[in-house]
């Protein structure tokens, strides 16, 4: 049922039945390297272009997630998926073979939250036994999309983030597992008028702040009711801005905040500047690192709140500001 202004608290909470993470070479060399289900040394994944490689990652992640649950593609009612590329081609070309009716989404780096929210809402509403939520990003395709093709060999500033090459797929359903999605808080677009595309963390932090506070109010909780509040890719700069914004509104989340972009790479050893980013960042970290802790009961309740920067290359070049959005997913051990 609806809670507060933007949230839903599920009466019959859907289960996160299984998940899978597929990652590239650099991610495999990072702190979470051993935890991913599949790490590919060749970032082309056997394809001819970065875009096709990203599609392959999505397909593999979906197949792995379904395989772990011994579920066939034919058993999955709907698929919710998205990526960073123009017209969402990585997703469309990737999930084509699976033959599952699909909703193509765009939430930038918050897509994993958006997809999980929609999948859970569909299961909770009784529209299907299994739903898939999938998202991906790829360093090569993202650089070509937003900055320059890799062959151009341009220099990247220290404030830039490293787009994660990775895909995370999540099977949400009515079948019992050790993690439930008990609620969602759908975010609104929050825009503080920032135009710096080299500092995404600052552009998205206000949206994260807005959704986290909305979630706490809607569910009548305090920050301490969550073992972790996890943002997607605010990075080192965005995190400190988030702390300041939250403190200004009377909330302190320093103790239990975690950011996927800061976790997925070792900043010193891997030269990843401001941290990891991309749809795949939050998705793979959730699947490989956060969910196992929830399954084990090491964490009992987590707020997963990936953030997205809703700009396009056109809007940016035309001088528009970068609006942010963040979706909150409440995950609980059971």
């Amino acid at each position: 049922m609806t809670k507060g202004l933007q949230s839903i608290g599920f009466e019959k909470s859907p289960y996160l039945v299984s998940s899978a993470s597929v990652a590239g070479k650099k991610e495999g060399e990072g702190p979470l390297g051993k935890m991913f289900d599949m790490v590919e040394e060749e970032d082309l994944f056997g394809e001819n272009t970065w875009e096709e490689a990203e599609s392959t990652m999505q397909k593999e992640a979906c197949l792995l997630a379904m395989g772990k649950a011994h579920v066939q593609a034919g058993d999955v009612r709907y698929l919710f998926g998205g990526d960073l590329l123009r017209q969402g081609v990585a997703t469309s070309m990737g999930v084509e073979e699976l033959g599952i009716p699909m909703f193509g989404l765009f939430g930038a780096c918050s897509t994993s939250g958006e997809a999980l929210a929609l999948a859970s809402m569909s299961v909770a509403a009784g529209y299907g036994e299994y739903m898939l939520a999938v998202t991906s990003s790829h360093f090569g395709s993202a650089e070509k999309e937003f900055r320059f093709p890799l062959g151009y060999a341009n220099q990247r500033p220290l404030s830039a983030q490293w787009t994660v090459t990775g895909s995370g797929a999540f099977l949400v359903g009515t079948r019992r597992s050790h993690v439930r999605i008990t609620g969602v808080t759908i975010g609104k677009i929050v825009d503080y008028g920032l135009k710096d595309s080299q500092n995404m963390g600052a552009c998205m932090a206000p949206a994260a702040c807005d959704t986290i506070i909305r979630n706490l109010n809607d569910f009548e909780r305090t920050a301490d009711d969550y073992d972790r509040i996890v943002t997607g890719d605010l990075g080192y700069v965005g995190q400190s801005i988030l702390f300041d914004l939250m403190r200004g509104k009377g909330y302190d989340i320093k103790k239990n905040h975690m950011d996927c972009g800061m976790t997925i790479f070792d900043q010193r050893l891997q030269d990843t500047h401001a941290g990891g980013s991309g749809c795949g960042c939050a998705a793979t970290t959730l699947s490989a690192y956060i969910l196992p802790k929830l399954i084990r009961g090491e964490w009992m309740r987590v707020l997963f709140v990936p953030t997205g920067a809703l700009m396009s290359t056109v809007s940016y070049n035309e001088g528009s500001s970068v609006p942010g959005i963040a979706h909150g997913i409440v995950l609980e051990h059971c």
Partner: protein
Amino acid sequence: MDYINAFWIGGLICALVQILLDRTKLMPGRVMVLLVCSGAVLGALHIYQPFQDFAGAGASVPLTGFGNLLWKGVKEAVDKEGFIGIFMGGFKASAVGISAALIFSYLASLVFEPKMKR
């Protein structure tokens, strides 16, 4: 001695540009335009050519040298053809450089594959 001058002057120009890239929020494209325009202006002020005569490739290879080349080409064409020279001179002077860049890039693309950044 020519080689040493070319080396340290070319290096100095690159170092100054690197400071711009690291310390300011200027986009790379803007920095390149700044270099070309500076070269053209310095050429028009008769500063760049003597500088290039001294530094050789150290001044002609960086984009400031390209700006100077554009200025020289336009000036010669205007002196010879009048007003229409504004449109004729630039491409004529830079034709060799631009064609070389295009042709060698194309050849490189036939031989090499893009690789993932480390």
